[in-house]
């Protein structure tokens, strides 16, 4: 090794004092080894300054934002399993959504029984008044459905900020249409409790609301994961 080799890096970096630089440059005229090293180090440094700067995926900021929001709220944010020791992967929204799906399953089972009720005789009471019996199974089914809707709605509302304004507006508009259908069906059933068409309309509207809320939660989850393909799939389903 040439005794002047320790000066190569500072020379390449332009960090030599002028007096030392001129002496080193005179040395380079006579030393093929140092001269070659200078040329190679310059080529490496030049290439290093021109390395590609890859763009940062937008989902990283989305996830950071969601994490900061969730640190202020209580719903945790999904983390990758590749992180440092001490950063445990956290559970997230599907736990609560699963509970709602269980409640919904019970509601659906009850609703199926309620959809084909056995004919019930009118009850003759004193005088000429006839009172229709209360359809207990229908009421129980509605209650289960509405419990599931309430749970899903709570999850969706708590995490709504993940969605952009336009998507939020579309979802609100869809919910508004479904709620209107629910109200109309209930009003019709109040006037005519035995109206099968009104009953079916109510069931359809309640089911639609559950599906919409499930899709909203799914969309929030996909956006948090930064999975654009997943987001596109959910939105495609919503548009249908």
């Amino acid at each position, binding site marked *: 090794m040439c005794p002047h080799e320790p000066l190569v*890096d500072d020379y390449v970096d332009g960090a030599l004092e002028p007096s030392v630089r001129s002496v080193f440059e005179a040395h380079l005229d006579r030393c093929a080894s140092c001269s070659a090293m200078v040329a190679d180090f310059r080529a490496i440094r030049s290439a290093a300054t021109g*390395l590609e*700067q890859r763009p940062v995926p937008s989902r990283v900021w989305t996830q950071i934002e969601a994490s900061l929001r969730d640190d202020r709220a209580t719903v945790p944010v999904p983390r990758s399993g590749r992180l*440092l020791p001490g950063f445990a992967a956290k559970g997230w929204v599907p736990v609560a959504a699963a509970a709602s799906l269980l409640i919904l399953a019970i509601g659906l089972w009850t609703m199926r029984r309620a959809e084909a009720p056995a004919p019930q005789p009118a009850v003759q009471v004193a005088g000429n008044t006839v009172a229709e019996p209360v359809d207990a199974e229908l009421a129980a089914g509605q209650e289960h459905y509405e419990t599931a809707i309430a749970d899903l709605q709570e999850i969706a509302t708590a995490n709504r900020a993940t969605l952009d304004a336009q998507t939020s507006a579309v979802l609100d508009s869809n919910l508004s249409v479904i709620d209107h259908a629910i109200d109309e069906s209930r009003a019709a059933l109040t006037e005519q409790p035995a109206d099968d068409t009104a009953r079916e309309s109510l069931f359809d509207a309640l089911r639609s609301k559950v599906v919409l809320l499930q899709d909203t939660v799914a969309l929030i989850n996909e956006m948090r994961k930064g999975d654009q393909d997943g987001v596109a799939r959910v939105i495609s389903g919503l548009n249908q």
Partner: protein
Amino acid sequence: MSSADLELAQRCRAGDGGAFEELYRQYSGRLFNLAWRMAGSSDAAEDLLQEIFLVVHRKLDGFRGESSLGTWLYRLAMNHCLDYLRGRQAKMSRATASLDDGEAEPVATGRVSVVARMDLERSIACLPEGCRAAFLLHDVEGFEHREVAQILGISEGTSKSQVHKARLRLRAMLSR
């Protein structure tokens, strides 16, 4: 530290969400690419970048302006990257490379003419973590040895030594 840095840090500390996003937009590109070249994969780099900025958010209260905001951020980022690499190495049951690994320096067998970008990327990925860190900070990011030393918690002399080792190794790999 510049007054703009100071103002940005103060706004972030005051809970200005817009200021924190501004900080992110200003530094995320460079820190992402640093994490990518340290960790060797885009998936790991995304996770690391997310964690780095969450740590920045938590630790901004402790930033007192003794160094520039950029140096402070890079120090946090590099510590995170090195912890990740050492954790990965521990999992693979390999000996952890120290900053001064004491290995014999490789010898160039030819000349480095034009350095292709991909060849350099691949070669950087083969550097031991200590000299890779110093090389990335000095030759790629453009920090002075004094700043590299602050970021890595080493002496200026060690920073120069690590960059020299990195260049020798890269020269050997690129001259084949």
